[in-house]
């Protein structure tokens, strides 16, 4: 604190010009003690911040307010605008998420049904194969007990075995195709759902700009900071 005012001013100016210090920093500094309160309010600092953060603002000669107040007003207006935009975006994305979720349920339902169909077909096929085996076995000599059992199996079957076996094998193939189709569709829909959730988390309001943009513009300002301050007083 043993520095003269002008050096403190220079530190603050340099900090703002190189985008090291933001509106938040200046506000914190202004609350630390009287002297820094005075120094951090200076017009040159806040005019610079206005220029960086709200360049669309055109200062008219009738602006009787301090740059700091103007900055605050702009900041708050911008916040309201952005919060509304955020609200709209959130509603939009939430309805998409709802849609994706509904579709996923539908696909899950179809998967369950198709799996059941598949199981039933496989079971029936097993049974018919046993019948086929039995009818083949009847053509050769067997012990009487086995022979009569096999005869029973064959007689109990009321469907044309060969025909039905073919039909079932085709049905099983089809079920498996459907199932893999549903699995793909489920994955796709899930990916879409996750992407929407990701978008939702990013849409949240950030002061000034989205955080990604903020860092970029800061880095570019750091390198031009030197030029800015040299030109100022020439």
């Amino acid at each position, binding site marked *: 604190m043993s520095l003269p005012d002008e050096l403190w001013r220079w*530190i603050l100016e340099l900090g703002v010009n*190189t985008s090291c210090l*933001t509106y938040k*920093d200046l506000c914190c500094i202004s609350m630390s*003690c009287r002297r820094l309160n005075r120094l951090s309010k200076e017009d040159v600092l806040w005019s610079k911040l206005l220029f960086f953060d709200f360049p669309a603002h055109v200062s008219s000669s009738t602006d009787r307010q301090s740059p700091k107040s103007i900055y605050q007003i702009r900041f708050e207006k911008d916040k309201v605008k952005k919060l509304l935009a955020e609200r709209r975006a959130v509603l939009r994305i939430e309805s998409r998420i709802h849609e994706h979720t509904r579709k996923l349920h539908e696909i899950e339902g179809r998967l369950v049904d198709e799996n059941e169909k598949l199981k039933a077909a496989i079971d029936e096929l097993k049974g018919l194969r046993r019948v086929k085996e039995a009818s083949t076995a009847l053509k050769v000599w067997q012990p009487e007990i086995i022979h009569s059992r096999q005869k029973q199996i064959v007689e109990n079957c009321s469907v044309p075995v060969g025909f039905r076996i073919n039909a079932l094998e085709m049905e099983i193939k089809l079920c498996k195709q459907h199932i893999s189709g549903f699995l793909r569709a489920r994955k796709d829909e899930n990916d879409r759902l996750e992407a929407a959730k990701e978008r939702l988390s990013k849409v949240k309001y950030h002061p000034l700009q989205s955080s990604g943009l903020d860092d970029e513009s800061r880095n570019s300002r750091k390198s031009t900071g030197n030029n800015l301050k040299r030109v100022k*007083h020439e």
Partner: protein
Amino acid sequence: MAEVNETDQTPNLGDSTTPSQPKPEQITTTNVAVPIPDVGPQLQVVVDEFILKNGSSDEEVRTAARNDLRDFIEREEIGITTLLVVVKYAHEFKNADLLDAFCERVADLIKDKKVVGVREIFGIVNDFTPEEEHALRDEHPWAFED
């Protein structure tokens, strides 16, 4: 050790607080070595080297010198007291580039700190009354609502 340019002015050794002292950005950098009391010999060496290299007509050498100085300050985590001492003497000896390098570092230390943090770093005493502090907090909520 003192390397002097043709265009330099005699360093203003005596009074550093005269009102007629030019604003920092109007000072031209002089290549006078800046002897700084109370800082470690290591820092003095680095500062001297910076001043030397900064006098070069080669842009690359100057940029490298600036980066080296910056890296050194960061790496060694030069304390705030030392930084402010160098700032004062760089200003006194009218070395704008040296001044900037250290001022930027000070600004860096202030960045993203809360009020308490700022006070802590500089050993600032809070000279506001509780009412004033309250009023200030009321003045600034817009900056802190996230």
